[in-house]
């Protein structure tokens, strides 16, 4: 659906986006994640044809954005950050104007506006001036703007920034409802947001892609070090550590603070084979230790994000 190759953008001598390669397939909700100033907005602006890349190519449905900008723009609906809409126009007039620019004729135009009013929940505010709307409502009008042409690709820049929790949930529901059959790219720096909405997460830092994968695979950190917490009763550290270290895949066993209750709390660092937990369990079963806690620490998205984008 979207094919990006070696996309680069310089502002003067500052490199905002550095040789990004990205492929997005149909029906995917992709989250572009990164700290402020990482190049998310610049990337999206190039995808939508607002900015011209310094170098690199963007193909949308095999159409080049340079040569067929009109055809490409018809396929894309875009909502920039904080929905910079016109202020001195009624919601209905605005949507009508967008429909006209998007070349929807008479009946189709009215039908489409009605559909979007239902989808985005605009029925009570059609007669209001956009300048008087709250931020959440303006964001919804912005979403209606983006979805007007029934685009195959929806690009949203920080769609929930600055909204209250209820509004965030509402916007998220609209995005998900729309994302069932459409391709969506959204940018955010809120991690829970990406986790809740996206199928796939691309983490950008300083203009480069530093991680790319499904939410699950990023969390599992495939192939990377995992941490398992194990708490035993009636065990002493030396024997336990020896027995466990002998298992294939365990790299290190650490003792956590043991209260006087007689519990032995261990932290097992492991890489390698996947079925390690099964073997740890089997190993403990053969002894007369009692297992009271046994968990694998899921690497939170937050931790991944911080690990990847930390200033060195």
């Amino acid at each position, binding site marked *: 659906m979207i094919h990006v190759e070696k996309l680069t953008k310089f502002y003067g001598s500052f490199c905002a986006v550095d040789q990004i390669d990205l492929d997005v397939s149909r029906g995917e909700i992709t989250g572009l994640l990164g700290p402020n100033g990482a190049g998310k907005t610049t990337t999206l602006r190039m995808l939508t044809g607002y900015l011209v890349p310094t170098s690199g190519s963007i193909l949308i449905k095999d159409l080049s954005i340079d040569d067929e900008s009109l055809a490409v723009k018809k396929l894309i609906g875009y909502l920039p950050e904080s929905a910079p809409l016109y202020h001195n*126009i009624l919601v209905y007039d605005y949507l009508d104007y967008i429909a006209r620019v998007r070349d929807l004729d008479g009946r189709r135009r009215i039908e489409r506006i009605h559909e979007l009013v239902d989808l985005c929940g605009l029925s009570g505010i059609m007669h209001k001036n956009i300048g008087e709307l709250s931020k959440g409502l303006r964001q919804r009008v912005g979403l209606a703007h983006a979805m007007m042409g029934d685009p195959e690709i929806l690009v949203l820049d920080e769609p929930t920034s600055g909204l209250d929790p209820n509004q965030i949930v509402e916007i998220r529901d609209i995005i998900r409802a729309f994302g069932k059959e459409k391709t969506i790219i959204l940018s955010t720096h809120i991690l829970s947001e990406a986790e809740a909405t996206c199928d796939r997460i691309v983490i950008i830092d300083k203009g480069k892609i530093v991680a790319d994968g499904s939410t699950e695979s990023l969390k599992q950190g495939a192939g990377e070090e995992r941490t398992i917490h194990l708490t035993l009763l009636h065990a002493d550290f030396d024997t336990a550590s020896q027995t466990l270290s002998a298992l294939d895949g365990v790299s290190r066993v650490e003792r956590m603070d043991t209260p006087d209750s007689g519990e032995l709390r261990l932290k097992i660092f492991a890489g390698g084979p996947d079925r390690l937990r099964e073997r740890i369990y089997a190993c403990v079963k053969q002894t007369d230790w009692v297992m009271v806690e046994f968990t694998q620490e899921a690497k939170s998205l937050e931790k991944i994000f911080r690990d990847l984008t930390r200033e060195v």
Partner: protein
Amino acid sequence: MTRTLQIFKKELRDYFVSPIAYIVICIFLLITGWFFFSTFFIFNQANLRTFFTLLPLTFSFVIPAVTMRLFAEELHSGSYEMLLTLPVRLSDIVLGKFLAGAAFAAIMLVPTLVYGFSISFIGDLDWGPVAGGYIGAVLLGASYSAVGVFASTLTKNQIVAFITGMVICFALTLLDKVVFFFPPQVVDVFTQIAAGYHFENISKGILDTRDVLYFASVIFAFLYGAHMVMQEKR
């Protein structure tokens, strides 16, 4: 073409849903009306010459005030990003906004037709120069709108856009009045560049292709400039 038309309609409507349009039209009518009629009965001649002589000067600051918001406001609020990512070409946007400014200038002239009609009741008005004058005025208004659109692309600040536009318009208006300051070799060139000179020709009632071509070139040059500036911003 439909896209240009939609943008034109939207921009023109924007003028009339806010008080700006009415204020600007009132100021324009007050100024032209006052200067015209204050000397009209002293000259005691049934023509609109004073009105048309003053028109380029009035237009020089009224039209940049009308056009200053066209791009500067959108650049400031960021709505330009939403506009450009709609399926429209940059040329559609520039042309649509320019046409709205030019149409506004033409609409502004409509109430002044009353001057012509009222004079024709009390004296023997020669409609030739009047018609020429109005054709010239529309061309002049369109040219200054193009200047204003260009000035508006240069900045996010509407006041800066207004002043820049005004300076260029004044320069075009007054260039042929100040040529005696310049060496004789360039006098001809400067006279030809001046909008005031070409406007005077048309408002005498002589519709010369050279003058029409002049205004067409000014419009084209400044719109092309505006297009280039906006293209450069991407």
